[in-house]
């Protein structure tokens, strides 16, 4: 291949990687955890670990009971049906100003409201972090993630271009070699063998947010009329409120009718628009548990009579977009695939992390000799971005188990305190990484080991659902899975701590030199 081209690709790969790698790691890490967001919810919200006999839940009982506790004059009720991964029903409402309130969790057996667990947990913190970085201002987070996604695609392509022995090294990982070699091997191994997944997951992630990143698409066809676009594409439908009071026909009958229309698939969530108004509509949305594509099938009913007003299903182009989105969102029920996604997500984390290690290790001597600060800066960034975010996540879990329910501090509610713990600890890891070069890796890996074990112990101590008990009950398997992964993470972190510091033990320079000379 043309050497100039390869060199320019190498330059692109190196610098895009160094500049955006920290962001990419954060996105990959949070995305990987989001694969099990609802399981993390169960771990962090002990009262929702219900042994729910998942029989048909009466909507006529659930929804009015949930709504009875709120202001009757609202714009929307939203009810998520309980399912395999979430044994509780989830209730939200939107006030007249468009503000969302929730979630409130309901016991599907009797409709009782479960006490506020005081946490954002997996679906409220980790999952949104993955695509928005919780930077709401001007959609900044979405744009940064979009930028990182585009960079990721460029990194994947340029990485393939600059890889000289893509087939000869297809199965090569020389763990025993010096750190630059072994980290590059691992970077290549996860990069090449995970390439199909990494490419598809990144591209699909970008396609999900087409309306934010490419608003011109909607603007040029619909002249900026989002409401019409949303109706055509996703089946949004509302009626003007009359102001006159209305009634609510039996919801279970509407659900049965929707299920019949969808050939046996039940609703996944239900919305009631302008409840209480004479013109209220009930919207049933088909479950997304049974196919890859995130269908937009909807049936709208007249709330008062229960008559079908409108049915919607995706047009071909939308169907393609929803299939691609579904590949990314994995809202379907398929445990083997969920685990495969998780492992492949971790492989993306490994790829990003080892890329950084390689950059630092190949420049360490030269920068030291020339007095350049680059290695020190990037090594601190790497440790904080890789080990640091893992420590911060574990601190988030530990804080969840330590903070009593209902606690407030400095005007912050419990859920916010957990998030504060995450960000403060993350900041501390960066400070630590920059102030203790050379030792930061090892020390932060040990911190991961300690926090992971502590989280498992605290879960057992505060909820009583220790590993043995959790494994024995099907409904506690999400808790057991989380504990097991925490326990599995500890030896891996130990191994990495030992490996990353081995080069400081200068016992075998001759042997390494011999191998390098081969």
């Amino acid at each position, binding site marked *: 291949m043309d050497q100039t081209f390869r060199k320019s690709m190498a330059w692109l790969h190196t610098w895009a990687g160094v500049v955006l790698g920290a962001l990419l790691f954060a996105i990959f890490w949070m995305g990987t955890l989001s694969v099990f967001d609802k399981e993390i919810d169960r771990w962090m919200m002990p009262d929702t670990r219900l042994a729910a006999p998942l029989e048909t839940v009466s909507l006529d009982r659930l929804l009015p009971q949930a709504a009875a506790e709120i202001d009757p004059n609202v714009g929307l009720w939203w009810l998520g049906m309980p399912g395999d991964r979430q044994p509780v029903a989830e209730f939200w409402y939107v006030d007249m100003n468009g503000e969302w309130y929730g979630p409130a969790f309901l016991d599907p057996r009797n409709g009782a409201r479960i006490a506020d667990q005081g946490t954002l947990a997996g679906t409220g913190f980790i999952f949104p972090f993955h695509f928005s970085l919780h930077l709401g201002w001007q959609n900044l987070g979405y744009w940064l993630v979009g930028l990182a996604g585009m960079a990721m695609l460029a990194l994947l392509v340029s990485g393939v271009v600059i890889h000289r022995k893509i*087939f*000869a*090294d*297809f*199965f*090569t*990982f*020389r*763990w*025993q070699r010096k750190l630059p070699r072994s980290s590059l091997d691992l970077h290549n*191994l*996860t990069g090449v*063998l*995970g390439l*199909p*997944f990494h490419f598809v997951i990144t591209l699909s992630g970008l396609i999900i947010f087409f309306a934010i990143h490419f608003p011109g698409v909607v603007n040029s066809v619909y002249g900026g009329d989002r409401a019409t676009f949303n109706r055509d594409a996703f089946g949004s439908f509302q009626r003007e409120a009359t102001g006159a009071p209305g009634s609510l026909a039996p919801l279970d009958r509407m659900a049965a009718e929707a299920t019949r229309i969808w050939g046996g698939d039940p609703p996944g969530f239900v919305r009631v628009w302008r409840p209480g108004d004479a013109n209220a509509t009930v919207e049933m949305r088909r479950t997304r548990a049974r*196919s*890859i594509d995130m269908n937009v099938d909807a049936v709208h009913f007249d709330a008062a009579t229960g008559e079908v007003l409108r049915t919607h299903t995706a047009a071909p182009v939308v169907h393609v977009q929803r299939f691609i989105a579904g*590949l990314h969102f994995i809202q*379907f029920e*398929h445990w*083997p*695939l969920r685990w*495969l*996604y998780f*492992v*492949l997500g971790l*492989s993306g984390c490994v790829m990003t992390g080892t890329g950084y290690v390689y950059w630092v290790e190949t420049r360490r001597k030269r920068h030291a000799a020339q007095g350049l600060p680059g290695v020190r800066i990037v090594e601190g960034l790497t440790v904080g971005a890789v080990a640091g975010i893992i420590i911060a996540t574990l601190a988030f879990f530990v804080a969840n188990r330590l903070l009593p329910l209902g606690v407030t501090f400095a005007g912050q509610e419990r859920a916010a305190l957990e998030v504060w713990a995450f960000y403060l600890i993350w900041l501390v890891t960066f400070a630590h990484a920059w102030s203790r070069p050379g030792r930061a890796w090892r020390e932060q890996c040990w911190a991961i080991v300690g926090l992971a074990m502590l989280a498992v112990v605290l879960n057992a101590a505060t909820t009583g659902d220790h590993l043995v008990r959790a494994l024995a009950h099907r409904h506690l398997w999400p808790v057991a899975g989380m504990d097991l992964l925490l326990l599995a993470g500890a030896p891996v972190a130990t191994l990495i701590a030992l490996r990353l510091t081995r080069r400081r033990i200068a016992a075998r320079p001759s042997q390494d030199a011999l191998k390098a000379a081969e």
Partner: protein
Amino acid sequence: MAGWLLLVGIVTAAYLGFALLALTQARPWQRLGQTAPPTGIRRLALRTLGGLALLSALVLCVVRDGPSFGALLWATAISIAAVAVALTLTWRPALLRPLAAMATAERKVRYSRMETNGKGTAKVPPNNPTRP
């Protein structure tokens, strides 16, 4: 139950497929303590068998979950199977020796025939156990 059995079959077929493909390459053979991978018709046979194993994994995936979930299951499972083969070669290369022995079985026969012909010294397949 059938779902679990098929899953085991898929993982086995995918792993075996990549292991066979790895045995046509130089570096994996070095890890196994041998100098050169098989050549010619034998290499072609290994590649064909490896490809067929991967294909059968796809068939099992589609049988288990239908074309849509099956294809996704296959695409993700084979990535991880390939990494598993690479990690086996790194940490437990001995596990692949039986497979390697099968791949070279016929060659050994030919060597022994040469010995019975009485031509020269006893030859053994190139083997260099000093390599890690």
